[in-house]
């Protein structure tokens, strides 16, 4: 195996890893605010691509504007979903929220099928085709977009989290919801914000990838599961861990193809994940929860 090939595999891992990272970030944000896993995260990814296609093909908007419309409308859907289906659950039981999102995911993908049809839809490449050469390995231009958007999103999220009042409030909720409420933070608003952000991140990933992979009403669950696995692998509750988890998972997959077999790449990635969990039950970067008796 030459270095060119190795680099090629690494780039593929990086690309997939970025997608998983964005989706994983969405999982972690919702988890931090609610303690629950959002099973509709994959649908936010799908809607980002699908609504961008709709804005481009049906509304005739220029591509950059169409992408923006796609992401923003998905973010709105995320917020509306939270307000209508999550907030009314007064006790905020994480388990109930998980199951509600399961129902939400079915509803969203089905509505997408009614609205946009069952076959896949395309989006043009953002800046045309072509690729650049890095030490012999090929990097598609669209992939640069994906990596770039991921990078901007991560930095933006970091800034929001660490440098703004809203971010401080979100971090407080993640640490201890009751204490946060006591100091006057509107925890219910934080939940809505987390869903809007999660939808935005998922939609960014979906929109950026659609020019390469096309989108369809049922692409949500596959990527959603990968994002969930990445979030768990990194360790729930920590945005950096989510990104790390995503990149590690992406690399695991491409290295499995490279060195073992493409037939079993998903199984191998899962086996490694299970192995990590059995050794470190809290994920790579998670802090082990010490239960107070």
């Amino acid at each position, binding site marked *: 195996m030459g270095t060119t090939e190795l680099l090629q595999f690494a780039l593929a891992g990086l690309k997939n890893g970025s997608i998983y990272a964005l989706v994983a970030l969405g999982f972690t944000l919702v988890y931090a605010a609610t303690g629950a896993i959002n099973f509709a995260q994959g649908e936010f990814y799908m809607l980002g691509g699908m609504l961008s296609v709709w804005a481009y093909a049906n509304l005739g908007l220029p591509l950059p504007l169409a992408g923006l419309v796609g992401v923003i409308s998905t973010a709105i859907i995320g917020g509306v979903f939270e307000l209508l289906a999550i907030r009314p659950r*007064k006790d905020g039981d994480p388990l109930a929220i998980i*199951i509600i999102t*399961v*129902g939400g995911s*079915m509803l969203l993908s089905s509505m997408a099928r*009614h609205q946009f049809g069952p076959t896949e839809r395309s989006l043009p490449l953002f800046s045309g085709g072509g690729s650049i050469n890095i030490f012999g390995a090929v990097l598609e231009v669209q992939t640069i977009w994906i990596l770039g958007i991921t990078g901007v999103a991560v930095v933006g999220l970091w800034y929001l989290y660490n440098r703004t009042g809203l971010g401080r409030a979100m971090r407080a909720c993640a640490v201890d919801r009751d204490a946060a409420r006591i100091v006057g933070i509107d925890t219910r608003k934080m939940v809505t914000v987390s869903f809007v952000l999660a939808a935005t991140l998922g939609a960014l990933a979906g929109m950026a990838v659609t020019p390469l992979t096309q989108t369809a009403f049922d692409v949500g669950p596959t990527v959603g599961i990968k994002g969930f696995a990445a979030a768990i692998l990194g360790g*729930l509750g920590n945005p950096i861990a989510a990104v790390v988890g995503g990149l590690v998972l992406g690399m695991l997959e491409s290295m499995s193809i490279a060195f073992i077999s493409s037939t079993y790449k998903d199984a191998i990635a899962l086996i490694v994940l*299970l192995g990590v*969990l059995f050794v470190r*039950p809290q994920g790579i970067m998670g802090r082990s929860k010490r239960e107070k008796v």
Partner: protein
Amino acid sequence: MGRTRIDMRVVVLLVLVAAVVFAVPLLTSDRYQLKVLTFVGVNVIIVTGMALLFGYAGQVSLGHAAFYGIGAYSSAYVVTSLGWPWLAGVATALILTAFGGLLLALPSLRLRGHYLAMATLGFGEIMRVVFVEASSLTGGPDGLSGIPYPSFGGFEIDTAGGNYWLVWGTAALCLALSANLVRSRSGRAMRALHGSESGALACGIDLTAVKVRVFVLSAALAGLAGALYAHVVGFISPSTFSLHVSVVIVAMAVLGGTRSLAGPALAAVLLSLIPFADAVLPGLSRSALDTIQEYQEDVYGLTIIAVMLFMPAGLAGVIRGISKRGRRAE
């Protein structure tokens, strides 16, 4: 400490329900309706296992479709390829899934909450790849067809009514045994585990044993359901045992409510019937049927959301509410 006193009214009600359920094949010979209701019965068996694992012991598994599949494939394989009798097939299914449950439970003991969910999910997905790739055993993506009907000795159950009774009889048995279990000492140990692990430890309960036991039991129930499904339908393929199925099983248990067997069983019946609404609502026009089919998934999702929002304690909570009001009224 003895077992909780049995309420005679509950017994009467259960007998009545059982009578209705068993009367169905005597009153209809419509194979479509019987087939649909048989599928519902299969789901009740799996969800009962999940009710034990999750509703009582508080452990989550997002990979139970894997046990469902292992049960189905093992029974189908030994009966079609090895020519073993059906009962041997069922026994194989039970043994393999129990063993699988054991293998999964042991390393998973350290995991909590979402991490356990992911581990079981991972197991489920790995098994799905196995189902696809081990084609000499499983038939690969094309699946296994020509699986014979269940048979005892020489007697084959080849009617829709017969299979209905077989499945529901098994479901009734599983429910009865589970009800017995939760009232026993093991059951209380399970509930203690759900309430607080450290508390249960403090009471001297062997957590490991309880967790493993309930995992194995729920896996075996899913395997039993799989074995029944394979022989009643005659055809299985990897897509029958997908992650979606695992998620739906958990959803049914959650909708049913915790610390209850009736709630999850009822939730299983309710959700299983949504795609087959036309089996329960006779005399619908063609256009109504078409509309139901078109929006079936939407209704499914909305039902789940509605139950979770308006019945916070699940169906079990509603049942308990009714019986409490009944008792207060007297």
